[in-house]
């Protein structure tokens, strides 16, 4: 479904990613694991068009999407749920969700009505969002914001979702709910690329994983094998 070959990318001339190649098969859940600063978020941004790679090729669903802007990539069905949630703070929860479905909603007219079915599903998945639907997104707690961010991505009915650090800054109890949501997504057959600093969690929910260090892939394989590999733990705690 998604294939990135030999990606070099970074900010202001310095390359954070130094030749990364990964592949995400359709219907699978692939994890990107690595310490902070290893380049997970940079890779996620590059894949979905927020960063233009210096070198390399990205193919999604059989089409070359290298160099396309983020909105076009998102319209093609590859959606990123960004690091730090990035909900639209001044807008209401429901508006945030509607924006997820922006490309397929009419710009004027009964867009709420058209999206109501999808909204129902999201509210079914995250009942807390239903209670808060007319509240400003900025006033939600961190966990609620993360739910909202995931919900927003799902509204787009993506073929594939990249989840960038969904656990960022969340309390453990809240984490559980987030990961439940991810497992739910998987079951529904959505292809997922999960970039995650909590290796155990990531390996537990994914089929395959890539271990990143310093902008390169140092280890890859089925998640269950990697979870048992002592060098993974070593890579984390030094």
């Amino acid at each position, binding site marked *: 479904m998604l294939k990135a070959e030999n990606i070099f990318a970074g900010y202001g001339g*310095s390359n954070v990613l130094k030749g990364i190649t990964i592949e995400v098969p359709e219907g699978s859940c692939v994890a990107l694991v690595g310490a*902070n600063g290893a380049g997970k978020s940079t890779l996620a941004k590059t894949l979905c068009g927020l960063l233009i790679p210096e070198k390399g090729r990205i193919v999604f669903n059989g089409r070359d999407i290298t160099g396309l802007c983020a909105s076009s990539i998102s319209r093609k069905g590859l959606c990123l749920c960004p690091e730090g949630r990035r909900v639209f703070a001044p807008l209401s929860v429901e508006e945030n969700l509607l924006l997820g479905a922006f490309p397929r909603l009419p710009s004027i007219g009964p867009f709420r009505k058209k999206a109501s079915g999808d909204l129902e599903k999201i509210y079914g998945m995250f009942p807390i969002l239903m209670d808060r639907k007319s509240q400003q997104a900025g006033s939600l707690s961190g966990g609620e914001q993360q739910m909202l961010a995931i919900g927003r991505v799902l509204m787009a009915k993506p073929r594939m979702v990249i989840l960038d650090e969904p656990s*960022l*800054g969340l309390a453990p109890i809240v984490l559980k709910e987030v990961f*439940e949501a991810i497992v739910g997504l998987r079951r529904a057959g959505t292809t997922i690329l999960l970039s995650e600093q*909590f290796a155990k969690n990531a390996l537990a929910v994914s089929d395959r994983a890539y271990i990143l260090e310093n902008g390169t892939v140092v280890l890859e394989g089925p998640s269950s094998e990697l979870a048992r590999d002592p060098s993974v733990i070593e890579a*984390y*705690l030094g």
Partner: protein
Amino acid sequence: MSGGINLGIKEKTAEHLARLALFCFLAFLPMIWQSQYALGLLTLMAVYGILLIGLDATVGYLGQVNLAQAALFGLGAYGTALAIQSGLPFSLALLAGVMAALLPGAALALPSLRLDGPQFALSTLSFASLAVIVLNESESITNGALGISVPRPLFFSMELDARRFYWFCLIVLSAVWWASGLLFKSRIGLAIEALRDSPTATDALGIGSLKHKAVAFAWGSSLAGFAGGLHVMNFGYLQPSAFGYDLMVILLLGVVFGGRRNQWGAFTGAAAVTMLPNLLSNRMMFSVFVTLGCLVAFTAPLKALLARRRPAFSESAPAAGMALCFALALFVPNLELWRKGIFALFLFSAVVGLPEGITGALVSEIRNLLRFSPEPLPAATGGISEPAPSDTAPLRTRNISKSFGGVIAVRDISIATEQGEILGLIGPNGSGKTTLINLVTGLYAPDEGSVEISGRRIRQGSLMAASAAGASRTFQNLQPFSSLTALESITVCQRKIDKPAAMALLQIVGLESKARLRCSELSFGDLRFLEIGRALATQPSLLLLDEPAAGMAKPDIARLIELISSIRDYGITILIIEHHQDVITEVCNRVAVMNGGRLIALGTPEEIRRDPLVVEAYLGGEETVPSSGDNHAILSC
């Protein structure tokens, strides 16, 4: 380093020689070009030169769009005119002009210097409008719209005819040029440049911002007043309406056109502003200029087209502007009627195509063609200075908390450091580490709790206070002073410029060979080291390093570890946020672990490694992952 002819002299010397040649030429010009008109133009050019060098202080060096210069110019002119009317001699009259601009300028500076960008522009704009209104309405003093006429006073019992007056203006211009160059190469000037590049870093390093901004603004205002005084002596008649919006726009654009942050640029701008209205009265010459402009403007897009790529906006827009000018030159019967339009087109092309102005573009051309000998570097002596020993903890936080829009970033943290220790601060991303440092250094005011540095309680939300108490920091997202060299980045942070000591610091961070390079030319890793050097230059007792190893290559990390240990050996306390475990294990005496805004563990690196809470925080706990078998909401996506 590119090739080119080696001149064998220093760039500074070459510049001095060029300037000398220019002034000699200007001084002799009235001898060969004997016309009252020419003299009038030249005098006006010299006066505008002074005015624009002043304007460059704010527009160029401070990087703020200042729309008050024309009004300050007018105030200065009125000050001088009124002083002459009341019988003051030449020098006192000029001084009165300077004061008449400086004092209102100061009144304007106090509120507006804290502002940025459009807001600064707006406050100066409204000041300018107010000043013209006041001049026009205070009929009893300024004679209002009728204007005032004054004779040129005697210059120490000597009568200045037009030519002598021109020479006098030239002398003043050269003095102002020299002084301005000196000011902006001094520590104040460096601080101002640093401030433009990163106000956060200058605040955090205690370089001080408001004071330096005020100096630059005051200098600019005084020059405006001075120029105003000369202006009224030149023309002998004043009316408030002459100092309105039109003049303001023309002056501003003159500086931008000529090139900012450079006295040559201000002078070029003054020449352009003076000569431009005359350009249109000679059609032949105008056509030549436009043709030339077109040639220059079209090279960039043509090059792009030849290289088979779409020309960028900054390449095609100037060409379009000049083409439009060309069309006007061809088809418009009376060019005078299009004066503003033509002016606008020229400027548009210049601002888009030559962001550094005419002189900026020329200077870089010259640097390509010619090679100059480098400035000699001072020998390194001195280095890190040891903080005075004290009994109080270098850093103590008491129950501080901070939340942003519903998300609690830091909750109830109390830490204390011992003198000369390295305290590591680790935790997963988003656990609140940087927020904690921002609270400690005063960037954020805590919602609750207090911070003490070396026993001094830090005023809430004040970066300067933390710096004054002896805390100095680096930044996770680099905050380089891009337009300064590595050496200048260090000296600007020193309490008093001490180049040998700065060289020594560069040596310590391993950048002595790159002392002359601008920060914009340094690599990411070099900048990280430079930030540490910068922080050390403030002679801190507490050093806060925010992810110093982020983005560094392996060998650099080894160097960093060595550097941090050696800094500690001087007795400086260090608080370090870091993700690289090897850095933490090798240098830290103690490690504090944060998760979800809380402090979850504190101990030696060994203890921390074995702490199950920490392991869980980093790797994630089993219990957070749903067991397979649970029934979940299923989406039909």
